[in-house]
């Protein structure tokens, strides 16, 4: 089972098409550094992207250097995954 400890989901509100294309540039990086949960679509819609812990510093620096405002939607993905897994195990015990 892949571990996502420290991975975060950042929510970015791009102001304009130029900022959206800066985000699209991230999509093309090889190897892939970010996983878009909500891809860059239009300025009125948020962009959500999962950033591996190892890339967080660089990606946040990239966003800040381009004036892309963001907030942290999920602080540590693995915490939510552990909760989800525990809830499933508990439910399975109850079902049995």
């Amino acid at each position, binding site marked *: *089972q892949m571990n996502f400890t420290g991975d975060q989901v950042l929510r970015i509100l791009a102001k304009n098409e130029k900022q959206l294309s800066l985000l699209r540039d991230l999509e093309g990086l090889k190897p892939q550094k970010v*996983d878009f949960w909500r891809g860059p679509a*239009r300025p009125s819609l948020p962009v959500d992207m999962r950033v591996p812990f190892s890339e967080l510093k660089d990606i946040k620096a990239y966003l800040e250097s381009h004036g892309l405002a963001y907030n942290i939607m999920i602080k540590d993905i693995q915490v939510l995954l552990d909760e989800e897994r525990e*809830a*499933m195990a508990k439910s399975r015990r109850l*079902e049995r």
Partner: protein
Amino acid sequence: STSSFSYSSYHTLEEIYTWIDNFVTEHSDIVSKLQIGHSFENRSILVLKFSTGGSRRPAIWIDSGIHSREWITHATSVWIAKKIVSEYGKDRIVTDVLNAMDIFLEIVSNPDGFAYTHSMNRLWRKNKSTRPGIFCIGVDLNRNWKSGFGGNGSNNNPCSETYHGPSPQSEPEVAAVVDFIMSHGNVKALISIHSYSQMLMYPYGHSLEPVSNQEELYHLAKDAVQALYEVHGIEYIYGSISTTLYVASGITVDWAYDSGIKYSFSFELRDTGRYGFLLPAAQIIPTAQETWMAIRTIMEHTLHHPY
């Protein structure tokens, strides 16, 4: 039996397939299980058929889970299956629909990917196909359909999350649905359930060109979104995929529309902006309840507008 099944929890592929068998056994008068094909890793692709008789009646197709990490979609479909059988004979619309039409429900469109989200990578989106000489695994099944295949909004890089695959319907999970719907020949509505971002959308995704019955689809989406909102106050936006979200090519609903299915819709279920794909199980039932009211609205319209 299905009575001990927790509809407010997430389940594995095996648990859902076992539930399907129990569900069909318990409601064999109105539900049957069809196997329409096998996935790349040779898992069964199952469809529930809800029918009160007749043969090749006009039908409504509903699928979920084409992107495997969107767990809320499978859970919503399981709940909807239960709702259909419990409402038949009670709810006038459901009863009228099932007395005249069949409903096909494919709960797990991407079984390999879904199994993988439980075993190895919770955030896996694609299927699990591999091809000689290609380093990365999987195709985005919602970019592998024949309509607009390979266009903008899909990617020919096999490592991309929106990789469209080597050719249209190259993936067995897509080909199975195409073969089934085309051989049935009388599907009048198709509803493909995704998550997340609270949208109800209709074709086209591959181009900005409006479809011929755009006006009708717009107003039907508006009514469906209103019915959804009235359940728990969740707001959706709606419109064509390319004008509401982004250009996406090779997608299910475009293929359906171009194949003559006038009422083709794609749902993006909750999240209300906190959890994304990791929507807590406590939100399964409220999400299913509101989604059901929107789907019921689409089914009613389809019933009353035969073509």
